[in-house]
């Protein structure tokens, strides 16, 4: 037994000395990290799922990828389309041919030249069914691709598609040499043309990229190395910005913003987002079939109070079917909070004493808070709402599996949406066309208006931006008046950065852009 007590003693001593030595070792740097001045750490809330640029669907993977890759066109700070690997493009009058003039003198990170053959190699990879890549959906309207010259390519469409140019922005170009190596290679060894090139990715831990010296656009950044680090816990991300372990933090939790008000070290940036928050109302069911009921529900909810209570004051009243940063957005006259008028409308619809209702949503604390807010607001006009919050996978099953509208049990769904490439089609077709009822799409309001469904088709068939704009104007006006949703708010993106760092921003689609990062 003496041995045992000696062991205890040694272990105790070891623990003590560990605790003490840690004190000495790190008293030198507050953040507990060693890094050069030109190295930055970007802290985000989720893991990257994949680095295959043709197979990424989630926002986090997309910005990891866009730090190293570029497409023929790209997105600007406000989601407008800008030239990238293509110097310019032309769309034929019938909207069926897209001709790109490619930039000359561009090299991939592995030294391969970028040219028409490289575009072709990427196109072939995506369109090959055996590869089963999600990017194929971006190009589903494309019929064929032709090489016109070394630096000129043309895509032929099966039918006109208004958002096609945005979709080209969703297709990054991979080095043809990497494509030859196959998908496993591409996943582990990203080779693009971006301002940063790949260093290392540890699944579930960090992604490191470093400056690409031969970038075609010249010297865009003075940052040598960028490390993306996923930290899911809100409080920990905030702490990392305070300790200096993080140079850029996104998303910044709303409730922590005021802690940085007087900070000398860090600044919080608020930028617009394309995410819209709403309650989709099942217009196929009684009593929601009645337009007056849906309008009354919209009038009964105080959106400004919603933003204060649920979103901590961060957001804008949703005054259309899409957020202001979305293509062809048109502001509508929003439903002003008016309980008296709402009651009158309900009375006209024959529900003077209100009715019982149910709202569904996921289990996140913000969703629960949002649903409680809706319940409390609708109670003002006699609608008695039961809240049912469900785990995400179960909820998705309940919403998307009913084969026919009459089988759907959902009455109201508290949810959000953002179009993946900031285009009006992505913010409209899947949500409001009667061809996209579940399980075929996300029209969970079962909104059925022939006029709108036809307009959506017409907008796609038109190649004229002026005409498209007019059609989307009509669509937004009509849908907003028909109120298949309770229109709540559009989000803002909140990000925090150390005051030494400039040029990193969050675009409206939630994608972090680091291509012009500058350290002071």
């Amino acid at each position, binding site marked *: 037994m003496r041995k045992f007590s000696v062991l205890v003693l040694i272990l*105790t001593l070891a623990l003590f000395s560990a605790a003490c030595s840690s004190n000495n070792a790190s*008293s030198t740097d507050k953040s507990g990290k060693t890094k050069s001045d030109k190295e930055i750490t970007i802290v985000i809330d989720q*893991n990257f799922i*994949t680095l295959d640029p043709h197979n990424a669907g989630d926002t986090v993977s997309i910005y990891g990828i866009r730090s190293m890759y570029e497409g023929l066109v790209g997105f600007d700070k406000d989601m407008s389309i800008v030239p990238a690997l293509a110097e310019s493009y032309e769309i034929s009058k019938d909207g069926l041919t897209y001709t790109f003039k490619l930039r000359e003198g561009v090299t991939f990170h592995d030294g391969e030249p970028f040219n028409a053959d490289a575009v072709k190699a990427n196109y072939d990879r995506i369109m090959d069914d055996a590869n089963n890549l999600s990017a194929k959906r971006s190009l589903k309207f494309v019929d064929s691709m032709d090489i016109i010259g070394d630096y000129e390519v043309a895509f032929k469409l099966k039918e006109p598609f208004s958002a096609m140019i945005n979709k080209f922005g969703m297709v990054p170009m991979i080095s043809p040499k990497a494509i030859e190596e196959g998908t496993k290679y591409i996943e582990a060894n990203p080779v693009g043309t971006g301002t940063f090139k790949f260093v290392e990715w540890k699944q579930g831990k960090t992604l490191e990229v470093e400056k690409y010296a031969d970038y075609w656009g010249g010297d865009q950044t003075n940052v040598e190395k960028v490390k993306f680090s996923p930290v899911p816990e809100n409080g920990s991300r905030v*702490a990392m910005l305070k*300790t200096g372990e993080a140079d850029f933090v996104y998303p910044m939790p709303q409730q922590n913003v005021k802690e940085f008000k007087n900070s000398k070290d860090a600044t919080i940036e608020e930028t617009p987002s394309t995410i819209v928050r709403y309650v989709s109302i099942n217009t196929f069911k009684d009593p929601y079939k009645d337009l007056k009921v849906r309008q009354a529900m919209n009038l009964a909810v105080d959106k400004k109070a919603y933003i204060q209570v649920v979103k901590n004051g961060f957001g804008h009243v949703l005054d259309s079917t899409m957020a202001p940063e979305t293509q062809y957005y048109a502001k509508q006259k929003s439903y002003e909070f008016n309980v008296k008028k709402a009651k009158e409308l309900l009375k006209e619809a024959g529900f003077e004493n209100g009715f019982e209702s149910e709202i569904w949503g996921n289990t996140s604390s913000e969703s629960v808070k949002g649903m409680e807010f809706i319940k409390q607001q609708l109670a003002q006009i006699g609608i008695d709402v039961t809240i049912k919050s469900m785990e995400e996978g*179960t909820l998705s099953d*309940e919403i998307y599996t009913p084969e026919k509208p009459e089988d759907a049990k959902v009455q109201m769904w508290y949810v959000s949406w953002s179009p993946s490439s900031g285009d009006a089609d992505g913010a409209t077709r899947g949500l409001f066309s009667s061809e996209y009822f579940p399980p075929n799409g996300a029209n969970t309001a079962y909104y059925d208006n022939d006029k709108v469904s036809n307009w959506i088709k017409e907008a796609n068939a038109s190649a004229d931006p002026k005409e498209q704009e007019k059609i989307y104007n009509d669509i937004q006006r009509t849908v907003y008046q028909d109120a298949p949703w309770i229109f709540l708010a559009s989000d803002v993106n909140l990000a925090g950065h150390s005051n030494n760092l400039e040029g990193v921003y969050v675009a409206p689609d939630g994608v972090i852009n680091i291509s012009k990062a500058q350290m002071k």
Partner: protein
Amino acid sequence: MWQYIVKRLVSLIPLLLVVSFIVFMFIHIIPGDPARLLAGKDATAEEVEMARASLGLDKPLYEQYFVYLKDTLTGDMGYSVKSGAAVSELIGDRILPTLGLTFLSIIWALVVGILIGVISAVFRNKWLDHLGMFIAVSGISLPNFWVGLVLIQLFSVQLGIFPTGGAEGWKSYIMPSFALGAGIMAMIARFTRSSLVESMKQDYIRMGRAKGLGSRQIIFGHGLKNSLIPVVTVAGLQFGFLLGGSVVVETVFSFPGLGTLLIDSIQFRDYPVVQAEILLFAFQFIVVNMIIDIAYSYLNPKIRYE
């Protein structure tokens, strides 16, 4: 003894088969559809079906189970639905940090817990006992995520001694292992105390005193050893739990362990990852239990296994 161990290991096989069957059925029967989650929110029915076929989920359930069983037996755990990465790689990346964290937590919890327990028992109803039990009660009642956040605020934000999270270098293990071990330490302290108090009333202790043994020898040589059986049981079970990874502490310290991987996988209905992880936990738990049983026979020679 060796015979016993071999027998126990052989009995693992049917147990793991049953576990694999139950896990497989449960995860496939609960609502949620990886094909839809993979295809994305704006996918059409056709695209969802394509995703389902590519995952092999369109086949009958029993067929899927046999494919899974065959692959598992040949050491192929499959690929993650969500990321396409090999499941063996995903788990391999995270098992070492989790093991490290588990060992650190258990070791400090055992050392400090037994120490407090012994002190409390020896100075029963004195202020040292009250202090010890106060620490123990605090350890049990303070939620570990809260302890974690307080540690971050204090040692990372204010003092800058430890990094806020991650698993790079030994420094990043200190705070999470403290937060994880606090509750276990407290439990061990309580068990040690009550068990030792009980032992000290036994005849052989009185005998020892009559023989003129020093009190240190009596406590550590006779009393403590005989009091350790409940302590080993508690520590062993907690050890088994910790091997599964702690979701809460891993999240607070953004620690890349098995717990968060499991939660992520369940949310995404990432069937291959969930199945592999649960099978691994079951295996670990059974092995830990076996080690506890063997430890009993060392602590109390009356317990013998054939």
